[in-house]
């Protein structure tokens, strides 16, 4: 959470008006900095690494395991090797960079990357009806996955 958000949340609690209701950042409004980072959280709620771990493995959500191996996840079968192993990724990159990768890997690695953009509407042609106008992950799921990635320290 950025500082202003924390203050806003605090104020809300003090005034008894409940949580901040600004809502998540829309996919088109995510701000990428010059250095390919997204530093602001997409939601008001801190990411939950346990939920992120689930979304990472779930074939209908992140399905990150399809392309990335993670030793910590050896309870799951079939880790792909299309992308690099994510062991120790939290040592290599800070959360703002990890968030940028998950939101739209094309902005970070270039148009040609096979890694899908998980929180973007810049997608391929002929999107199946049930996926039209939708992102693969919700803003909160992105935060959860990023929170999980930050636990991968070795």
């Amino acid at each position, binding site marked *: 959470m950025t500082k202003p958000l924390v203050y806003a949340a605090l104020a809300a609690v003090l005034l008894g008006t409940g949580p901040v209701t600004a809502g998540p950042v829309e996919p088109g409004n995510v701000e990428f900095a010059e250095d390919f980072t997204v530093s602001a959280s997409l939601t008001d709620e801190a990411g939950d690494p346990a939920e992120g771990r689930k979304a990472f493995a779930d*074939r209908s959500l992140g*399905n990150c*395991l*399809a*392309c990335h*191996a993670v*030793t910590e996840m050896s309870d799951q*079968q*079939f*880790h*792909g*090797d*299309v*992308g*690099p*192993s994510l*062991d120790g990724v939290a040592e290599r990159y800070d959360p703002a960079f990890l968030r940028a990768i998950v939101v739209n890997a*094309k902005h970070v690695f270039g148009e*040609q990357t*096979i890694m*899908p*953009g998980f929180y973007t509407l*810049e*997608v*391929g*042609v*002929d*999107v*199946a*009806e049930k*996926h039209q106008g*939708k992102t*693969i992950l919700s803003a909160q799921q992105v935060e959860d996955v990023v929170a999980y990635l930050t636990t991968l320290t070795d």
Partner: protein
Amino acid sequence: MGKNKLGLAAAAGLTASLALGSAYSEPVEDKLVIDGREMTTWTEAPADHPFDELISGWHYRTDETRALEADSFENPGMLYVERGEEIWNAVDGAAGKSCASCHQDASETMAGVGASYPKWNEAAGKPYNLELQINECRVEQMQAEPYKFDAPEQVALATFIKHQSLGEPVEIDLAEGDMQKWWERGKDRYYLRTGQLNMACATCHEDYNGRYIRADHLSQGNVNGFPTYRLNTGGMVSLHNRFRGCIRDTRAEFPAAFSDDLMALEVYVTWRGQGLSVETPAVRQ
């Protein structure tokens, strides 16, 4: 892997294999011999091709799956070849004819035919694959109903006819009619990114063949074994069914079977695998 990407991809592969022990795997070096005849499953690509070498999907499968294809008594796809032969000889339609009435012994009249499809059809003004040709003969020559896409009889007959070219190199004629235009259109389609996952055929089969995507060992996506027997589903899979499945997996709507889009794709993808032997019925996972 695409020629330009070799260096980069090899470096990434190294990281992955270090992390995982032995997960990164090249296609297995092995020889495919069926009924004493050696198949061309790994061969040099022509100069104007995106690959250096053409490799059959057979090399990317497990020892057990490869062995199953090599043994024509064990190959479950051979049952469909037998079924196709029965249909070949069965009278159907108002003209009271079977395929055999006109084409006699398929082992002679259809030898090598399947290896040359899709083929330009002047009257139709478009390329025909075997399924379209079969339907044309049923309607025009037999006065029978055309088969619906993926009718069991259609798949069995296509398997039977293709099998008469077992071991023959795939070779199509792009000089006929407008084949070159269809090739171009198919090529555009091959590199077109589709769906919410935003991937093209080339994204998986050109850039990342040799890698595992979850449990699947990605191949070059060649068509020389179609229709193929799939162990996962326990049945034959036609080529357009496979195309549609791969497109669907990108979370995209897929074109109709035998539509111009998929016929163009068939022309182009078949060209990409020219020189590999027809393996029908190939066995895949």
